């Protein structure tokens, strides 16, 4: 996802000098081409996320679309008040780009796991939170973000995420992208955990159950049209690589509650039960309650026979 993002941004930035890429000294081997080809649009601020975010806001106030790139918690939690006051309150066109969603940095440890970022950033006013599912969606969403001027949080995976989409989805702000149709319920996911949803749908199929699978990249602008028809069909399971509290599932529950929709919703998210456990992304997902098996179990538990 990160390579797709950088490549897409670079192609656009070649024709748009208003695009600026800032990094807090991260992106080795990822940002080099951008830096080489467009040095005047690239800034490595150093290891100083708080000053960098304030600087990005000031920079963006001059009419630039400033992308701030770093890993997980560094451009989000480390500099939260700069995002809150200088970006969101002032409504400056900054895009925060984090790589390493959820457990993508696996054995690097909890300091590098992004598990609370969605909850915190989606609580901020004016902030659009976007979680792409795969490289194909990342491309379209990056173009959509470039075209917008809203404060935005783009939460990327890392590298080598499988492609969930077979054809590029039509990107529209707040719209859920369905990957597979189904009649008995819906597996709704945000991020690269889509592979688990696809696997769970196949497993359910062997049990004679037909579920839709859909990617929900827009977390702060919820697709109520899709949700209302999905809830009529059957249970909706929301799957994310983030803490339960305040994540994508919470966002869906809040929206459904506000719109007074009826139906059954189950959440699959990290229970944060193993903060210090070492392992790769797949291992840590399972260890913290995010797995195909759990999705199938949750769906069957909610399904009305």
């Amino acid at each position, binding site marked *: 996802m990160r390579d797709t993002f950088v490549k897409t941004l670079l192609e656009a930035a070649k024709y748009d000098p208003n695009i600026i890429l800032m990094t807090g000294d991260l992106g080795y081997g990822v940002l080099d081409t951008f830096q080489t080809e467009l040095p005047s649009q690239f800034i490595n601020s150093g290891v100083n996320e*708080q*000053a960098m975010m304030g600087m990005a806001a000031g920079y963006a106030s001059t009419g630039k679309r400033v992308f701030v790139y770093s890993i997980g918690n560094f451009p989000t939690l480390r500099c939260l*008040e700069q995002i809150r006051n200088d970006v969101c309150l002032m409504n400056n066109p900054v895009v925060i780009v984090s790589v390493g969603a959820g457990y993508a940095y696996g054995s690097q440890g909890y300091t590098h796991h992004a598990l609370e970022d969605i909850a915190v950033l989606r609580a901020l006013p004016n902030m659009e939170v976007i979680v792409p599912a795969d490289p194909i969606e990342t491309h379209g969403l990056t173009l959509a973000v470039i075209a917008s001027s809203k404060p935005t949080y783009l939460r990327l995976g890392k590298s080598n995420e499988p492609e969930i989409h077979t054809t590029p989805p039509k990107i529209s702000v707040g719209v859920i992208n369905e990957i597979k149709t189904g009649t008995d319920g819906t597996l709704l996911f945000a991020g690269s955990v889509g592979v688990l949803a696809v696997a769970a749908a196949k497993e359910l199929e062997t049990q004679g159950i037909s579920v839709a699978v859909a990617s929900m990249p827009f977390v702060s602008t919820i697709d109520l049209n899709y949700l209302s028809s999905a809830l009529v069909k059957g249970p909706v399971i929301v799957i994310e690589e983030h803490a339960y509290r305040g994540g994508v599932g919470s966002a869906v529950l809040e929206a459904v509650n506000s719109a007074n929709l009826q139906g059954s919703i189950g959440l699959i998210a990290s229970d944060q039960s193993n903060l210090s456990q070492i392992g790769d992304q797949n291992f840590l997902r399972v260890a913290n309650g995010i797995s195909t098996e759990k999705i199938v179990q949750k769906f069957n538990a909610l399904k009305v026979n």
Partner: protein
Amino acid sequence: MSNMASPFTNAADLALAARHEIISMTSIAKASHVASALSVVDILSVLYTGTASISPEKVSEPDRDVVILSKGHSASALYSVLALQKFFPKDWLAHYCENDAPLGGHVTSKGVPGVELSTGSLGHGLPYGLGIAMARKKSGAMGRVFVVMSDGECDEGTTWEAAMIANHHNLNNLVVIVDRNRIQSLTFTEDTLKLEPFADKWAAFGWQVQTVPGHDHELLSNALASKTQPSCIIADTTKGKGVDFMENSVLWHYKPPAADDVKKAFVQLSENY
């Protein structure tokens, strides 16, 4: 000093008029930070009488000079100066901190012409101003950026992060003015967290440093003319300047002037200026 008067061209006249407004408005609003405002008002008066290229007609021009008051708690000083210089109606001052009024207790930018950044949490103004200065430098745009900070604010790590970045990128369009009144929230700065040797710290970060008497308009103006930046001007000031019972006292960081205090303060101003 009526609404029909012309903007001030002389910093001393503007500062004196602003001192009256600061004392009145904080009293009416029962607001804190009157001494912080009296400390910084001469710096702002110098900036807004020609040192900074900014006027009510230019607030949206891309090449304007940008003034950021990072010590957002001295909002009454900035509001008074901007109102007296006709950026917005002077009668807004009497409604400072009122429900649904434009002027809040910490510097508020939305709907207030001339205010560049909402501040109130310390350590935000310098990185933000740095971003504007860097954007201008990279695009070849004109206009300087003045960031007015408190000394207590220099406890914040962002100050020194930004100081390093500004020097690394040779931002000669960025000026920091520190209102060095030596008092912060609970007591004196040097008893809270030592800043000295303060000038040496900025110099060690690669800044050109000048220390000037912070209530002397001419010396402030001369120091601000220098463009071999990034430039840090340490303005030696007195908290509560101009009103003897407010000077150098932590109490007046918080206490709103009562009606009787206002009377006494106005007498002081007429004697001292």
